[in-house]
């Protein structure tokens, strides 16, 4: 059995972690994606002279369009670092710009500010530092002492199972918070066992691997990681 989503309850609200790496909150008709990093290739060329294949914005928007076409959400929350920087947001090709506008049409679109994109990037929608709905607080970077129900991105968590090959982008979930994987095409990742990330999660926590299916598995206990790391 291959499942395309993993169902859970966080702070009393029902959520679905999708295999694509997006989060669906049915009661609010809300879709949430983290760390799109649109314009990453453009910024790499501008800042470092790296000429990566310039298709990552298109690839990311293609994937986003697929998810939106299926979920048809009333609200979309982009959880920060939606643009690799504000200049990259402004430099976006007209074709991609139109594509994004089409996706935003007819729904509420919330850009949560991230460290890469602290302000509006010139694509409409609402830009906010945080967003609350249905007992959940959506912010870019997790706060260690946050109230229960925090949903965040920023860390690009990845995790692997033995024999599975490459580590996959994953959600991290415990009783208090959810951290989303990066949705952008050219995004690396931080191992979910890394102390910086593992210490944010409770001892009993799940990684939900994304990719072909949404695959839940337990994270190794925190204590062992902390002692050795």
């Amino acid at each position, binding site marked *: 059995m291959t499942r395309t989503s993993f169902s859970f309850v966080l702070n009393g609200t029902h959520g679905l972690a999708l295999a694509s790496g997006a989060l669906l909150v049915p009661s609010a008709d809300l879709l949430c994606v983290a760390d799109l990093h649109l314009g990453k290739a453009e910024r790499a060329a501008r800042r470092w002279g*790296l000429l990566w294949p310039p298709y990552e914005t298109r690839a990311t928007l293609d994937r986003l369009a697929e998810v939106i076409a299926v979920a048809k959400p009333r609200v979309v929350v982009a959880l920060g670092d939606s643009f690799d920087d504000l200049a990259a947001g402004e430099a976006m090709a007209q074709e991609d710009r139109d594509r994004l506008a089409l996706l935003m049409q007819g729904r509420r679109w919330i850009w949560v500010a991230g460290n890469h994109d602290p302000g509006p990037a010139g694509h409409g929608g609402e830009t906010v530092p945080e967003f609350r709905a249905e007992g959940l607080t959506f912010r870019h970077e997790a706060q260690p002492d946050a109230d229960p129900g925090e949903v965040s991105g920023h860390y690009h968590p990845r995790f692997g199972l033995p024999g599975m090959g490459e580590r996959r982008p994953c959600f991290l979930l415990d009783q208090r918070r959810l951290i989303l994987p990066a949705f952008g095409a050219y995004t690396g990742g931080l191992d979910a066992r890394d102390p910086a990330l593992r210490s944010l999660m409770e001892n009993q926590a799940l990684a939900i691997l994304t990719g072909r299916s949404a695959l839940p598995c337990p994270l190794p206990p925190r204590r062992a990681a902390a002692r050795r790391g």
Partner: protein
Amino acid sequence: MDLPDPLHVFLARRGWHLHPHQSAMLEQARAPAILLVAPTGGGKTLAGFLPTLAELLADPRPGLHTLYVSPLRALTADIRRNLLTPVEELALPIRIEDRTGDTPQTVRRRQWTDPPQILLTTPESLALLLSRPDAARLFSGLQRVIVDEIHALAEGKRGDQLALLLSRIQTFAPAFRRVGLSATVEDPADLGRLLARYPDPCLILRGGMPGGADLSMLAHRPPPWAGGTALHAIPEVLDQIRRHRCTLIFHNTRAQAELFFHHLWMANEDALPIAIHHASLSREVREGVEGAMRQGRLRAVVCTGTLDMGLDWGAVDLVIQMGAPKQIKRLVQRMGRANHRAGARPRAILIPANRFEVLECVCAIEAAQAGELDGSPRGPGRSMCSASISCCGPVKAPLRLMPCMRRCAAPDPMPALSRADFDACLDFCATGGYALRAYDRWRRLMLRDGRWQLRDPRAARRIRLNLGTIEDRPSLAVRVKGSQTSLGQIEETFASTLSPGDTFLIGGQVVRFESLREMTVEVTRCRNREPRIASFGGGSFATSAGLARRILSLIGDTAAWDRLPPHTADWLRLQGHLSRLPRGDRLLVESFPAQGRWHAAFWGFAGRNAHQTLGLLLTRRMEAAGLDPLGFVAADHALLIWSLQPIEAPAALLDPEELREGFSAWLEGNALMKRTFRGIATIAGLIDRNLPGQRRTGRQTTVSSDILYDTLRRYDPGHLLLRVAREEALRGLVDFGRIEDMLARVQGRVDHVRLDRVPPLAAPLLLERGRVPVEGRGRERLAEAAAARLLEEAGLADLT
């Protein structure tokens, strides 16, 4: 040109005289290009330098006179020491220095303002020198370039890089002469074309044999059925070490060398001084071993290909090759590491690591004795692929591009680079060459005043940092926690599988993984006796076609079996009795049940890489035919596939047309393609490993090459890098060429033998390492089952 008097005196004092080929090099000193082909130990290097020493003695003047280029850093230091002996003894007014990645900054700066007459360097360091805007000043007086071990450089991208570097020097010093030094190779003319300026001819000189080594195989006890490390032979190896002054013990991979050294050390009850040397160890460690070796303080060194070349260690009187050498020319090269000046005939011993390697070792010895060599390093299949790569490499430098590229575009050794490909290369360097013209604003190169130049001169620094990287796998430094001592390097892919507390071997030490910081693996020393084996890259080689041919003909010639040890001859006899023997003009396929699965062994003798590809192709076809293939394993001589249903008609599965069709479809999404692409993307600078001033967070500036590959495939399938990756994969890891050769040899003559138990020859295949599970829904199911089990164990099953 005659030998100058001081050199006469120097030789006479030692009772030495010139070899004929050394005199010939002096006589031909004016030739624009000359290639000296001589076996190791034949005094090649001195022959190469004689004309330079003679010229500098006749006309001592400052400025760079001769540039010596070697594939190994260690060689430059060694050559310098050797050259300094006559120079210091005769008080000659000649300065000799080396310049490599290890040379301190202050020395480099001084070399620029006040160059030595003889500079010893590597292609990578030379590329950096040539990338300086004022390179002309250093090179304009250059008289000669000596390329040592040119046969080793010629194999692969460094050969292309060398050709470009020579063209570049030509623009500064139009009259410089080119000298190539090579071990014995099959096709010297091919190397000559690489060396000479197009279309100049290259003079080829041959040096005499220094007298072959006494070659033998040590296998009176039957080796194990499978495996590659030959741990069974440790008592014999120790015995040989005791009976010789100094022994070099060659392994084919670094992992095998580490494992063997670990066990050799544990069995070394006499505490003989032995050491380990391979390319993944840190410079300090390697230099320590080399120094101890020179001073005669070591009785044995366990090593890999890094000691194949150059370093002339007087004391070595025994060379042991552990496992089959896979290539005849590698065996010949390694044999040459034993000393010829010591008087006694040097010895070389082959120790097969498993039963099949007995056959291979016998054949390799016979081929070496017959003077047969295999594998032309620069075969006819060289095409735009390597040419583009090398363009992407050196041309990233802020060169005035056109003169250089025009040279590489027209002539041999890159005949297949068309104008269109040349333009594609240039466009790639300038804008990335994408169908979507996204980077015209950020282009790297601009045409100004008729010359291609960097748009942003500040980019030069970043490009220089990446220049000369010909490396396909990122590696991480290994450091002992709390110290600055570097032990060596391991592959990133291996490092990512380590958890804190895991132990592994490096440099003969067992270490415990503590943490990964930035690009450094922190470890502590520990005493675990069963460590894991790190993977270092530099993977295993496939048995050469020439050697495979010899093995097949030996198996087919029962009269020749008396040349085999009895245990191996008996094994073949049993195979002939219970099944059939493989033959050169037919393909033997054996079907049999074992371990609750159907197995099929395909005796293709096409080498590990080609069998790996064949395994991927055949299992796809079997999947389509409903035979439920579960996995396969590729060895050098055969492919073994296991499945739920038996194969009934192997000839149909092997239909060449359908195989070719399936191959095209399969290649694009293949992991080998991705690995090949990774190497190319690194050289091309897409994966930037040295970003100045950027802290490496693993999230900001690196993108997985797999993602780049998938994105390109989807949005820009005709891109230059994909074409290059495809061509390179076909020749390299995928090796479809040898499948074609095998199919052509067999011409549909497939012998299918059905058996009710494991046939003798195929039995070791069941123990072979590197079993590949067949991709598909199966793998996803396995992962799900594993996750479910973990959830159950963690008491979290109800969470789902």
